[in-house]
C-alpha cells in the first residue's frame, strides 16, 4: 500500500507537469493584427543597421524608439531566430544571409519591389548597401601579398566567386587575375560579420592560385572593428558592410601618423525586411519603416493594425 501510494505520487506529479507544459506549448498562437509589433534591430556597431539607417534616413542621426517590444540582438542569426520564433516580429537582414536561411520567415517587398538580383542591379529596390574592404595605402604597398589579394578581389576571378554567392557585382570592365610568382606572406583581416563569409571564400580561391599565402587571421566581429584596425594599424584589411562616407574615412585616418585610407567595393547587397511565416503582410513602404525604426518622427504604432492602416 505504502509503495503504491509513493509510485502514484510520482506519477501524479509527473503527469501534472507534462500536461501543464503541453497546454502551454499548444497555446502558442499565430500572427494576430491586434497585438504589439515586436521590432527586432541590430546593435549600433552593426553594418546592417548602419546600412538600413543610411538607406532610410540618409545622414540624419537616429536612435531606436523606446518601447516594451523593441529588441536589440547581436547577430544576423539572432535576428532570424528571433523573427522565426515570434509571430508578431519584424526584422531586417542581408540578402546573402537570407538566401540560405529563409525557413520560417517571409520576405517583404518594399514599396512594391521584391529584393532580388534584378531589382538590385537596376536600383529599383530602395534598401541596398555596398559590401567593401578598406585598407591603408602605406601598409598595402609594404605588403606584396595584401596588394595581390586586393588585385584578386578586383579581378574577374574574384567577382565570379562573389556572383556564386548570389551577390550583385558589376564586372563588365574587369580583367582576369595575373599570377604573381614567388609570392608569400601573411594577410590579416578584421571587420564585418556580413562580409566575412565572402572574404573567406575569396581567400580559399586566392590560396589555390597563390599557395604560399597565410590567411589564417580573419576575425569577424562587426564593421566597427575595421575602424580601429585602420587607426591602430593592426590589420591589412577592414571589412565594412555599409556605405563608407568621407567622414568615416577621416575617422579611420585619425590614428597615429600620416596615412591614407582607401576603400574598395566587393559587392552590392540588399537589406531585406522579414516577418514571421504566419504573417500575411507582403508589402511595406519606406515611410512605414521610417516611423518604425526611429524615434525622431514621434509616431509610434501600438499594434500591427495601426501599421497596416498607416498610409493606406
Amino acid at each position, binding site marked *: 500500500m505504502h509503495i503504491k501510494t509513493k509510485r502514484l505520487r510520482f506519477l501524479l506529479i509527473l503527469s501534472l507537469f507534462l500536461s501543464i507544459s503541453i497546454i502551454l506549448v499548444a497555446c502558442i498562437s499565430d500572427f494576430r493584427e491586434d497585438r504589439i509589433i515586436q521590432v527586432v534591430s541590430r546593435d549600433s556597431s552593426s553594418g546592417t543597421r548602419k546600412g538600413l539607417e543610411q538607406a532610410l534616413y540618409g545622414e540624419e542621426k537616429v*536612435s531606436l524608439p523606446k518601447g*516594451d517590444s523593441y529588441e536589440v540582438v547581436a547577430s544576423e542569426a*539572432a535576428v532570424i531566430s528571433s523573427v522565426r520564433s515570434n509571430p508578431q516580429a519584424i526584422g531586417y537582414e542581408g540578402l546573402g544571409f537570407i538566401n540560405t*536561411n529563409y525557413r520560417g520567415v517571409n520576405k517583404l517587398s518594399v514599396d512594391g519591389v521584391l529584393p532580388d538580383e534584378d531589382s538590385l542591379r537596376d536600383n529599383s529596390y530602395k534598401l541596398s548597401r555596398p559590401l567593401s574592404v578598406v585598407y591603408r595605402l602605406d601598409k598595402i604597398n609594404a605588403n606584396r601579398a595584401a596588394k595581390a589579394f586586393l588585385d584578386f578581389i578586383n579581378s574577374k576571378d574574384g567577382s565570379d566567386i562573389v556572383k556564386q554567392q548570389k551577390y550583385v557585382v558589376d564586372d563588365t570592365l574587369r580583367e582576369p587575375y595575373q599570377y604573381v610568382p614567388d609570392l608569400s606572406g601573411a594577410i590579416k583581416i578584421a571587420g564585418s560579420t556580413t562580409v566575412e*563569409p565572402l572574404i573567406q*571564400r575569396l581567400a580559399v580561391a586566392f590560396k589555390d592560385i597563390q599557395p604560399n599565402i597565410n590567411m*589564417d587571421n*580573419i576575425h569577424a566581429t562587426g564593421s566597427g572593428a575595421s575602424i580601429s584596425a585602420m*587607426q591602430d594599424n593592426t590589420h591589412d584589411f577592414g571589412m565594412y558592410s555599409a556605405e563608407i562616407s568621407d567622414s568615416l574615412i577621416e575617422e579611420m585616418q585619425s590614428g597615429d601618423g600620416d596615412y591614407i585610407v582607401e576603400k574598395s567595393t566587393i559587392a552590392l547587397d540588399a537589406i531585406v525586411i522579414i516577418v514571421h511565416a504566419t504573417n500575411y503582410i507582403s508589402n511595406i513602404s519606406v515611410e512605414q519603416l521610417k516611423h518604425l525604426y526611429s524615434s525622431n518622427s514621434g509616431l509610434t504604432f501600438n499594434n500591427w493594425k495601426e501599421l497596416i492602416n498607416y498610409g493606406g
Partner: protein
Amino acid sequence: MTIQQNTTSKFIHVRERVIKYSLFSSAMFSVIALFAIVVFLLSRGIPAISQVGLWKFLFGTDWNPNASTPVYGIFPMILGSIYVTGLATIISLIFGLFIAIFLYKFCPKKFRSTIEQVINLLAAVPSIVYGLFGIMIVVPVLREIAPNFVGHGILASSIILSIMVLPTIVSISLSALRSVPRELYEGALALGATREQSVFKVIFPAARSGVYTAIILSIGRAIGETMAVIMVIGGSPQMPTSLFQSIDTLTALIARSAREESGFLVEVLIAVGVVLLFFALILNYILMKIKERKVAHNYKIQLKKNNEKANRSTIVGLTKFIIIVQEYWKIFWQTIGKSIKFVLTKPIYYFAYLLKITRLSLLWYKFWAWIDTWWSVHNRQTIKYKILKWWTYIASTCGVLMLLAILYFIISGGLPYLSWEFIFGKYTLDNPTLMPAIVGTLIVVGIALVIAIPIGVACAIFLSEYARQARGVKYLRLAIDSLAAIPSIVYGLFGFIVFVGIFGWDYSLIAGGLALSIMTLPTVIRITEESLLAVHHTYREASRALGASKVRTTFRIVLPSSLSGIGNAMIQTIGRAISESAVLILTIGMVVGVMPSNILSPGTTLSLNIYYFGNTLYPDQAAATGVVLLILVLILNLGLSLIVKLLSKKQGK
C-alpha cells in the same frame, strides 16, 4: 642514534615549513589575481568615467552612443542586472535547496546518483544552448501569458538563469548537508522528531554556511552570465518597469559590442566592466557580513556579558538590533499575530470539515478515507514539513524534466547533421568540421586544469588545515569569494587587456586558458575545501596521535579521504571551461577554420563554435556541435564518477 634522530626531526621540521609556505603562497595567488584584475580594469575604466562624469555615468537614465551628442548613462542596465539576478537567484533557491534536501534524504537510493549526474550535467550545458532554449520555448510561452504580449525581459532571463544556476546551488548545498555530522540527525530522531522535522529543523540549519556559499557563487554566476541573457533580455536600453519588457543588463551591453566597437565606446564599455566588478565586490562584502552576523548571533550570550567591548563592533550592533527585533516580534505575536493566524487559518479548517461531512459517492469515500488516515497520523506540526517534503519531490521532478526538455531540444535539432565527417573531417567552407575546435578545447581545458587544480587544491588545503594558525585568513577568504563573484565577462575583459594587450600574445589559446584558470580557481577551492572539511576530525586526531606529522596527516590521511571532492572539482572545472564562451570570446580569437599549431596561435573551442556557427551561415551545425559537446560532457562526467567510485572503494569506504 640520537644524532640521527635529531637530523631526521630537523629534516621533517624543514619539510613541514617548506610545504606550509608553498601552500600559503599558492593561497596568495588568488589575492594577487584579484588585485591584478582590479588594477588593470581601473586603469582603463577610470579615465572614461571621468570624461563622462561619474554621476552622469552611473545614474544617467539615457544610453545613446549613436546620437549626435552621445549620452552614456548606464542606470537602466544596472537596475536590469539587479532585477534579473535577484529574481533568478530566488527562483533557483526555491528549487535548488529542496532538490539538495531531496537528494540528501528523501530520494530512493536507486535514483540518487542518476539525479545527481543529471543535475551536474545541467552545469555543463553551454550557456548559448540555454539561450537557444529560451528563445524557442520560454519566450514564446511567456508571450502568451504576458499582458502586453511581450515575452522578452526580466522574467524570461530569470527563468533561464535560474536553470543555469541550479547545479551550483544543488551541488554546494548538498555537500554542505552531507558534511553535517550524522549524530545530529540521529539525536533529533531519538528525541521523537519525525524524519522531515529533523531534516528541515536540524540538518538544514546546521548546513547554513554551505547554503550561503551557494548563494554567493550562484549570484556571481547569474550576474556574469552573458550569452544566455543576451538572447532573451531584449536589449533595448530603457528603465525596467515590468517583468515583460525589452530591457538590457550590464553584461549583455558589454558582450554585444565590446569586440565590435572602436575608440571611446570601448573605454566606456571597460568602465561598465568596472561597475560590474564593483557591483560583484560590494555584493560579496554584504554576504560576508551576513555570514559574520550569523556567527555573532550564535555567540550572542557571550557577547552580552562583556557589553562594553561589544558596543564598539558593528557586528554586535547588528546582533543587538536582531535581538530587539526578536523581542518586538514576540510581543507582536502574543498580542495580535496569533489572532490574525486564527482568522486566516480557521476558515480553512471549517471548509475542510464541511467537505468531510459531505462525502457523497463511493469515489469520494476512498479519497476521504485516505485524507482521514493522513489527518489522523500526522498532527498539524508535522504537516508543514510534509508539505515541504512534497515540494522537494516536485522541485526535483521539475529539475530533471527541465534537463530532459533541453536535451530533447538540442538532440532533435542537432542529431540529423551529426556525422563522422563533421567531427573529424578537414575544415572547408562548405563542410565546416569540428576538428580545430576539438584540438583548441583540449588545449584550453588542459591549460586551465594544469593551473587551476594544483593551485586551487593547495589553497583549499591551506584554508582547511593551516588557516587556524595564520593571520589574515579572513581577507584571503574575502579575496576568494570576490573572485567567485566576479562576472565571467570581466575575466574576459581582464584577459583582453592583459594577456592579449599588455603581454602581446594577441588572441591566443594560452590567453584564453589563463583567463579561464583564474576564473575557475574559486570553484576548485570551494569544492575541495568543503570535501576536506567533511573528513571527520577523528581521522586527523588519530593520525597525529600515532605520531604522524601534520604534512603526513594531510597528504596521507585527509587528502585521500576527500579525493571524491577533488574529482567533483575537476568535473566542475572541465564543465565550466568547456561551456564558457564569454571569457574566451574576448581572448581566444574565434578562428574557426584553422588547426592551432601551438599555444600561442589563435583558435576556437566547441562552445565558441556554437556561437560562431549560430551567428553565421551554419545554424544546423551549431545544434550538432551542441550534441557533440553534450556527449563529451556526459562521457567526462561518467568517467570521472567511475574513477571517484574506484578510489573510494580502494579507501575501503
